[in-house]
């Protein structure tokens, strides 16, 4: 896609909403923007109806601001709180059934490769922890086993936010939540470790408290997925509403998690590393 495609004809220019005009004039399409540039350009995600202080909303905002080529990026989602922001972004976004995201992305990416062999159409899955680790785990793993050229982003709030605070497979052990009235009985599902052994060529574990690392990880993940193989970014996106902390503490909660169980981790295969260093255009800012 080029910016030309969203540029309105002169006759309609005045009729369009300001948000649209701003997107055309100041959006990140065809521009190399990163999280460091936030505030200096029109973002591709608009005001969202998430709860105050929502970590998921922040994770999405940082993630979308870091896409290497938003004008050719398609996001696949699944039911969950992430839907609220993603459906309001100026990207093609599909939320179909719960848990099928990596299957949809597989079919879509393959078809786009057939139809647009000369250009990279980036397919990025962005979904909650319940969507990846529980109902969609086998679809996620199989897309990795098959080596699909897609990026999977888990927005890990360690709870089912959208359905009112039930435990998920990614909830920490012992946590009392709905449907875990006496505390969760098992540890977090090691999806990050599984990514490394299931075919992902690049995987990062990061929190929303670390905006630059998050942005760099996401950009690299999308670039590497184009040519080398599946990539995975697991972002800790705490949910004040269901984890019951004040909404102004989201970053602090995420920072604390970095000390306990969410330390930054990066895994990259030699091939992915070589590919990345071969890319002249990678803008390193972290």
């Amino acid at each position, binding site marked *: *896609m080029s910016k030309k*495609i*969203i540029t309105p004809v002169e006759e309609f220019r005045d009729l369009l909403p300001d948000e649209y005009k701003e997107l055309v004039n100041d959006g990140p399409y065809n521009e190399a923007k990163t999280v460091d540039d936030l505030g200096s350009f029109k973002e591709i995600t608009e005001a969202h109806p998430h709860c105050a202080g929502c970590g998921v909303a922040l994770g999405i905002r940082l993630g979308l601001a870091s896409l290497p080529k938003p*004008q*050719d*990026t*398609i996001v*696949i989602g699944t039911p969950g709180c992430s*839907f*609220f922001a*993603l*459906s*309001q972004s*100026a*990207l*093609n*976004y*599909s*939320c*179909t*059934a719960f848990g*099928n995201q990596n*299957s*949809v*992305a*597989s*079919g*879509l*990416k*393959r*078809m*786009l490769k*057939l*139809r*647009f062999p000369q250009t990279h*159409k980036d397919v990025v899955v962005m979904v909650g922890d319940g969507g990846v680790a529980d109902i969609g785990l*086998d*679809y996620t793993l*199989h897309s990795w086993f*098959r080596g699909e050229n897609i990026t999977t982003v888990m927005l890990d709030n360690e709870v089912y936010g959208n359905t009112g605070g039930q435990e998920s497979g990614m909830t920490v052990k012992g946590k009392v939540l709905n449907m875990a009235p006496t505390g969760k009985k098992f540890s977090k599902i090691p999806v990050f470790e599984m990514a490394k052994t299931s075919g992902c060529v690049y995987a990062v574990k990061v929190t929303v408290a670390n905006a630059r690392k998050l942005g760099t990880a996401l950009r690299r993940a999308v670039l590497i997925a184009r040519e080398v193989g599946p990539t995975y970014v697991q972002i800790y996106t705490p949910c004040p509403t269901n984890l019951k902390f004040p909404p102004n503490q989201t970053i602090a909660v995420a920072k604390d998690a970095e000390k306990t169980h969410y330390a930054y981790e990066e895994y990259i295969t030699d091939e992915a590393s070589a590919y990345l260093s071969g890319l002249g255009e990678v803008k390193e800012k972290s």
Partner: protein
Amino acid sequence: MNKEQQAVNADKMLFETPRKRAFITGSEAVAEAVKRANVDMAIAYPITPQSESMHLVGDLYAQGYLKDYYRAENEFAVMAAIHGASLGGGRVFTATSGPGTLRAMEMFPVWAGSRQPIVCAFMCRGIALPPSIQPENIEISFMLDTGMLIFHAENAQDYFDMILKGYAIAEQPDVHLPVGVFADGFFVTHTREVVMLPPENQKLNAYNPASAPIPAFDMESPPIRSTRDPLLNKSNFISYAANASWHQEVLAAAQRARKHIDHFLGGLIETENPEAEILIVASGTAVSQAREAIRSLRDEGIDAGLVKVKSIRPFPEKEIREATANASLIVVPEFNPGGWLAREVKASIDNNSRVIGGPRVFGGMSLPRELIVNEIKKALPATAVNS
């Protein structure tokens, strides 16, 4: 690699090109249809009695007739990936059977709601406990309200034609709905019969994503498209209205498909001797059995006619109402325990005590013509009294 195929429009291939005889199974007929359908991508997951057809589609991929093909991890994954591939703006194909259909169930309304011209073949088989891999078409009843168009093939010829014609109908700009082409497993898939085929060096014109009423998911054309938005998760009157009108549009698209079904399938129903007082209304292989029963009845001096229902969705209410206007007895033989076709027929016509829902066979039993004949004879004195 792919022998040179000439792209032609559906009318030319289906109506003008001379056909040649082939003695093939129903599964082979499916592959012959896919070979000529210019399918970009197919995705498979094995289940009896579908497997053979998707093996053959895999062979077509190896020969270069398709651009991509893989075995996915289960049927929900297949139908989700087919949805994704279709969102990407290409022509896709898959097939499944019984339990696979039910495992994938959540995706069929998504296809319809996303207005995707996906053609999926269903080779019907038993589903429930006690486990059964035997012929039985109960799965059609689960599909009736998914928003898909549903065609029911009597034999391998129908199966071949309905799949190819399915693409032509599904891809009409005013339709753009998925088409399920159903056949009774084993009876159609695993038996060999004469099928008339157009030459294999012809294929349908490529799918044109610009013919879709909603843009493909490729970031190539505005508006930016977001499926299920703004319909989901907004609690206000505008979103209720938007959601409801979207559903209505899916239903309306199925109604608009009627004229194309008339054109390509020669009508939603076919009749034989519809003036008879006794009519058998059937779909799928029950139609062939009904033809046999009618022959036996004729030998005994009893006159009976036939209504073959080809399109289950949209359901030909008006056509069936007209065709059965003079009948005093309507018998609906079926290959399933629920009797979904009899329910549909009863709901479509007046004075529906004329309808006998049966005979019904299931669990793999065949439907001997005697069963149909007996059902009719049993009912005869009663209707004679009524009339």
